[in-house]
C-alpha cells in the first residue's frame, strides 16, 4: 500500500506533467455569510522545499522549508484578511486523549479524501457516480474541531516546491541539445476548505506549474494568491 505522503506526492507530480497551472472544484461557488467575519482554522500547512539533483531526484532542504512555512502562513493571513475572514492557527493537542485521537484521524482522513479527489477528479480513473458531483466530506465529526476553535471552516494546504540544481541544469541543457525535454523544478500543491459544521469539502484547488518560489515573501505571496484564485470566501 502506498504511504500517504508518497501517494500525494506521486499524484501531484503526475498532475504537474499535465501542464495546467491551477484548477478547482466546488461544492458551492460562493459561500453566503452576510456581514459576518468567517473564522478559518488553518490546519498545519504541509510544506516541503527541495532541489532536483542531476539524476532527477528531489533532495529536501530543511532550511528553505522552514522559511517557506513562515512565508506561506503570512501570505494566507493576508489573503484571508482581504476576504473579511480571520485565520486561526491550529495547534495539535499535546495529550493523548480521545479528542486528540479524533483530531489525528480527521487530519489523516482529510489526506485520504484529498488523495481521492486528486485521483478521481483531477487525474484518472474517474468514478462514474461522481461525474457531475463534488460531495466528498470528512463527516459530522469535523464539528468537534470547529467547536473547539470556534471556527467556521478548516483550510488545509499542501505545497511542494523544487528548484533545479546546477547539475540538473547541465543535464537539461544536454538533453535539449539532443532534442529531449527533461523537467527541472516545479511548484505543486493543493488546498481545500472544509465546512466545520458538516465536514463537507466545499472547495478544492490544485496548483501545478514550473514557476514560483516560496523562499521569498513576495514570491510566496504570489504563489498563495494563485492557489486561492477561486477561493469561495
Amino acid at each position, binding site marked *: *500500500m*502506498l*504511504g*500517504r*505522503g*508518497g*501517494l500525494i*506526492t*506521486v*499524484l501531484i*507530480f*503526475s498532475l504537474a506533467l499535465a501542464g495546467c497551472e491551477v484548477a478547482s472544484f466546488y461544492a458551492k461557488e460562493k459561500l453566503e455569510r452576510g456581514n459576518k467575519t468567517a473564522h478559518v482554522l488553518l490546519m498545519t500547512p504541509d510544506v516541503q522545499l527541495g532541489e532536483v539533483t542531476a539524476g*532527477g*531526484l*528531489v*533532495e529536501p532542504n530543511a532550511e528553505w522549508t522552514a522559511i517557506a512555512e513562515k512565508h506561506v502562513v503570512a501570505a494566507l493571513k493576508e489573503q484571508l484578511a482581504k476576504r473579511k475572514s480571520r485565520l486561526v492557527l491550529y495547534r495539535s493537542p499535546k495529550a493523548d486523549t480521545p479528542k486528540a485521537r*479524533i483530531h*489525528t*484521524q*480527521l487530519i*489523516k*482522513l482529510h*489526506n*485520504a*479524501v484529498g*488523495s*481521492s479527489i486528486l*485521483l*478521481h477528479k483531477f*487525474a*484518472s*480513473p*474517474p*468514478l*462514474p*457516480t*461522481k461525474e457531475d458531483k463534488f460531495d*466528498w*466530506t*470528512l*463527516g*459530522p*465529526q469535523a464539528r468537534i474541531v470547529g467547536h473547539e476553535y470556534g471556527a467556521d471552516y478548516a483550510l488545509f494546504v499542501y505545497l511542494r516546491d523544487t528548484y533545479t540544481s546546477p547539475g540538473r541544469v547541465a543535464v537539461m541543457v544536454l538533453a535539449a541539445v539532443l532534442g529531449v525535454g527533461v523537467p527541472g523544478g516545479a511548484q505543486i500543491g493543493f488546498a481545500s476548505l472544509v465546512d466545520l459544521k458538516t*465536514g463537507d469539502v466545499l472547495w478544492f484547488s490544485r496548483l501545478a506549474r514550473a514557476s514560483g518560489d516560496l523562499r521569498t515573501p513576495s514570491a510566496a505571496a504570489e504563489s498563495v494568491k494563485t492557489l486561492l484564485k477561486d477561493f469561495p470566501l
Partner: protein
Amino acid sequence: MARLASLFILALLIAACVQYSLVKAEKVAIGDVYTVDAQIAWNKKTEGKTEIWTVDGPLLQELRFIKGIEDGDALFRGGAGKKLPPFKSKMTAIEIKELFETSLAQIGVARLKTLNLRPESFGKVAGFRFEFTYALKNGLEKQGFALGAVIDEKLHMIIYSGTRLHYYPKHKDDVERLVRSIRMI
C-alpha cells in the same frame, strides 16, 4: 528518493490501466454463482477474480467480491515482489480468517484485529462472518467485516471496509442489506 521515482511510475501505470464502470442500484450477478441487490449505485473495477466496488474511492471505502478463488490462489494482490499465502480448498473458517490476517499483515497494515468469527449463511450456503479493524502505515484507522463460504472447493468472500471515521458507517447498512439479498444462481 528511488522509492519516490518508483511510486511515480507505479501511479502512472495504475492510472493508465484501471477504469471504473457504473453498477446501478438493481440486482447484479456476481460471476455465475450468485446475485445481490445493490441498494445504491457503485463504481466497479476488476482485479483478476475480484470485483472491487466503491462509492467515494477505494482509499475511503470498498466492497470487495472475491469470486471463487481456487486451491493455490492468494486472497489479495500482494504488490511488487510480495507473494501472499495461498488458499487451500480444505481450509476451515478459522484457517480462512487466519489467511486473511496473514495476508493483510504481509501487505503491511498495522494493529489488525479480527473479531467475532461465527457461522453465517452466504445465501443458502453455510458460511462464516467476522469483523475486523486495522490501521494503514500512516495511522489512518479502518474497519470492516467479511462474509465468506467455500462452494465447490472455491472460496467466495464479500469484504466491506472503510475509514473508521465516516466512510465505513456511511454505507454499512446498504451493504448489510446487500449481503442479506444473496441468491444463489
